[in-house]
């Protein structure tokens, strides 16, 4: 899911630059217009249309900013930690990531988060719901131990129902044994 946000934001930024470069072209063409023909006028119109598109995308970007900027920042910080098979222990590596999540939550005191717990497919549905909850709770408790108030953190387990990666090998399983932190929407 967050991957998609990432792509979306990159697309938005790119289209913004495309818009800008078109604007530049546009002014160049306008400058050159004096001595020239219909062809250029048509081009100018086309460019104007593209320019409008860029503007409307810019609007979207403004709308998305609050939540999306923070979400992308959280992804930069590290939005997820991983677990060993049938385990919920916070590894040293995970602890580093959660330290950064903690800093992020301190920097943004108005943010509430939900931690979703996930498992690989090698377990029954019901056990994995419980195991996912245990993993998400381990993350929650770690953040609380660092000083985040517990009422800022909700926990949901998806067990094996929402894997990050499709696939049926060690690589997929490793990525699917995870707890992911999301910023709550309004």
């Amino acid at each position, binding site marked *: 899911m967050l991957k998609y946000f990432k792509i979306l934001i990159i697309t938005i930024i790119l289209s913004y630059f495309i818009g800008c470069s078109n604007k530049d072209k546009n002014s160049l063409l306008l400058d050159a217009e004096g001595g020239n023909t219909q062809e250029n006028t048509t081009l100018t119109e086309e460019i104007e249309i593209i320019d409008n598109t860029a503007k409307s995308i810019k609007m979207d970007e403004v709308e998305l900013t609050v939540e999306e900027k923070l979400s992308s920042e959280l992804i930069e910080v590290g939005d997820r930690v991983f677990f060993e098979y049938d385990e*919920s222990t916070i590894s040293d590596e995970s602890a580093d990531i959660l330290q950064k999540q903690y800093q992020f939550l301190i920097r943004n005191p108005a943010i509430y988060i939900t931690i979703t717990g996930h498992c690989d*497919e*090698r*377990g*029954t*549905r*019901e*056990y994995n*719901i*419980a*195991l996912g*909850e*245990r993993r998400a*709770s*381990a993350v929650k*408790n770690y953040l609380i131990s660092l000083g985040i108030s517990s009422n800022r953190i909700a*926990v*949901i*387990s998806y067990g094996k*129902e*929402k*894997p*990050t*990666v*499709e*696939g*049926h090998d060690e690589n997929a399983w490793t990525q699917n044994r995870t707890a992911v932190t999301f910023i709550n929407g309004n």
Partner: protein
Amino acid sequence: MDKIKRHFLKCTFLIYIFFSSIFLLQPNIVLSQDEPLQIDIMGGNIQAMPIAISYFSIENDLKKLKLQNNIPNLIANNLVNSGLFKLLNRDAYMQNPEQLNSSPKFRDWRIIDAQALITGKISKKSGNKINVSVELWDIYGEKRMFGISLSSKIKSWRRISHIISDKIYERLTGEEGYFDTRIVYVSESGAQKDRIKRLAIMDQDGANHQYLTDGNSLVLTPRFSPTQQQITFFSYRGVNRGIKPSVYLYNLLTGKIEILGEFPGMSFSPRFSPDGLDLIMSLAQNGSTNIHVMNLKNRKTKQLTKGMAIDTSPSFSPDGKKIVFNSDRSGGQHLYIMDKNGKNPIRISFGRGSYATPVWSPRGDYIAFTKFTRGRFFIGLMHPDGSAERLIAEGYLTEGPTWAPGGRVLSFFRQTPQKDGSMKTRLFIIDITGNREKELITPEDASDPAWSPKNIN
């Protein structure tokens, strides 16, 4: 558009329920004396009993409905699928349905080695109703074993056939039949990462398939009430509105869905008590999962297990006195039995691997479970004292056994990875000997089957 379709399906379904419950199927069973002709179905090696099922005789103006063939065919399908009966080829029958209106010539049926013969007669009754009379004959004992006569709307012919199948099965095996039943399950579609899962229901033979939920929210683990037209299930349907994933109740007669209490953590893994008055489930909070029981009348809950472990997938014994469940309190996942008040837990599984989803057989003699060991999943059985463990089905992922009434047949689901990386998920039916595994055909991928009790008339 989709809404209209959903509405239509719901209506059709409700009408189906309405008709099957209101338009009386009046069983009118005439049993004769005790007969020697009976199969011991709990024995190990079952030899299928050769039986003859004649087409039925029918009044002329009903002939075009083909019920004279459809009803005996459906009965044959049920009995043969049980694995206990072998249908003798009808080309070899020496008496036609009309000749069988009186007592059969037993000698003619002994020639083809029929142990039992089923004959029937369909006649018209007023108000678009039919009467179906069926008789079961012991060929070597040269006796009529029993007769049954049912009247109903023509459109209920499948239910008539299932009820008759149950009576014949019960007469010949001494065990409870399971043909007049339904299966609720989770219908799955879409990519694994964002799977659409919705509840669906069908007859045990796959007929009368209906969807119960629309797929907008994730649903899992449906289970039938033993006493009412109700299903309990686990769903994420309130998550966008800040409601935790929870246990819900679905009323099949009204289509109404209600949440069963709101708890500090997630509630899941529901199952009814045998009397239908209580519900046991798991509550997950702060990394531990414990089993709770809820009184469905006053909605009061009581915690049955305590501690930091994961205790889940509880299932009552048929007498309601014990609960079997799955716990990792000893490290690995194992099966435990405790009293219904949570006292005296004892571990019953000791083999290698992880044990999960224990389900107590309606006969009380077996506990079916899911087992994960050496990279494979199995469906297994053991006695409630943990003895005589054996595995009856396996796969890349097999899970979620559910018992048919009678406790001789189970359903479960299996996921098989495909060459393109996708996953095929299907329902299967198997008997306790591990024989006659058969796929139950569904429109889409299917998981989490739950067998209903016998339909309520």
